[in-house]
């Protein structure tokens, strides 16, 4: 029998820590996934032009319409990146470039009906991806 008493509290907390991280990641996968889904539904309605927000041809409303469409797609991309990133982490593999490219394309394709929305979305997605890359590098 060992004469030195084991520090059970320390080993317990060490065991508990990954569990907590796992739980947080799992919750983030679900929550971000749901939010991604909400923005996908919004995108289907608005970017699919099944629902038209503004009918006015004034520059202000046209610009606002474009901004809303772009933002919805960007939010979809953002939440899906978080969700899939955490999902990959739970499976023990890091998110790779192929997955990022897939989410990028799936986001971009939502804007195919409107060339202006497409160009703005493309630029914004590119900026986000470059930003993620810089953050990862640093």
């Amino acid at each position, binding site marked *: 029998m060992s004469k030195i008493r084991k520090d059970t509290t320390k080993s317990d907390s060490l065991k508990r820590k990954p569990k907590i991280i796992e739980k947080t990641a799992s919750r983030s*996968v679900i929550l971000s*996934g749901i939010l991604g889904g909400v923005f996908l539904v919004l995108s*289907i309605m608005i970017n699919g032009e099944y629902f038209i927000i503004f009918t006015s041809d004034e520059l202000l409303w046209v610009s606002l319409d474009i901004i809303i469409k772009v933002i919805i797609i960007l939010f979809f991309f953002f939440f899906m990146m978080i969700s899939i990133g955490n999902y990959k982490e739970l499976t023990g593999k890091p998110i790779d470039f192929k997955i990022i490219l897939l989410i990028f394309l799936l986001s971009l394709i*939502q804007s195919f009906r409107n060339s202006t929305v497409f160009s*703005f979305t493309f630029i914004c997605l590119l900026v986000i991806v470059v*930003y993620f890359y*810089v953050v990862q590098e640093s």
Partner: protein
Amino acid sequence: MKKNITRIITLIFITQALLSSAYLIIDSNGTPIQTEVGFGNAPVIDGVIDVTKNEWNSAKKLNVSLFQDLVNQSDGLPIDLWILQADLSINFLVRFDLNDHSSSEYDNEFLGILIADWEDSLNFTDAKIVQFSNISESSMQYLDYYIDDEEYNEDLKSDGEGLANLEGNEIIYEFSIPVENTEGGTEDVELEHGVRFDFEIVFGKSAIYPDGILISNILSIYLEFPPGAHPQPIGELIMSISTIIVFATLGALYVFYIYRITQLKKKIERIRS
């Protein structure tokens, strides 16, 4: 490396800013008023609304203004603009009031409809004008011009018709422009169903074109197929099918991803237990 990335991001932002400003400039050249048409029987072009025949009843009725400067729109002349599409013609009615309208000041008044070329927004190449030579005597003529680099040349063969009628201070201009007319030749813009065209309503007081044009406004009108004959244009059909395919695929992928999440959750719970 980090410096290069910062440079790339800056470059992307500058490009985007330039693209956005170009987009804003294009739009500020006078955004056309987008409108649809009303359908009905072709009215009699005489400058009179025949209520007994329900003429113009089903027309699309708009209240727009004609402006001197389409970018900074202020102090415009309000007009009633009615648009009625018949089977083979698009008909316009323009009605407005002016003080002392029968005075000599308006002797050479004209109202014209300029039509932009196919797929060439705001490039107006065809003009249909009702030109007065003496408004108090109601002497006028309908003119059909083609516009070549800002120069107005009279068509060899005049297409369409137009007439005006002044009653008191109120004047009514009526125009009928043929649609699906293959005999218009190269001098006319061939209007076709299922296509969007830009029309510019112009008004002036002297018979010089384009210098005599004082005020105007631009409309973008989609010439629909007449009721009962609604073949959806192939481009629109492809777009609708593509939309369904794209978003259905996205939805399916999303459902598959949710399924994978639930599977992963179950797996984690199994490992834990």
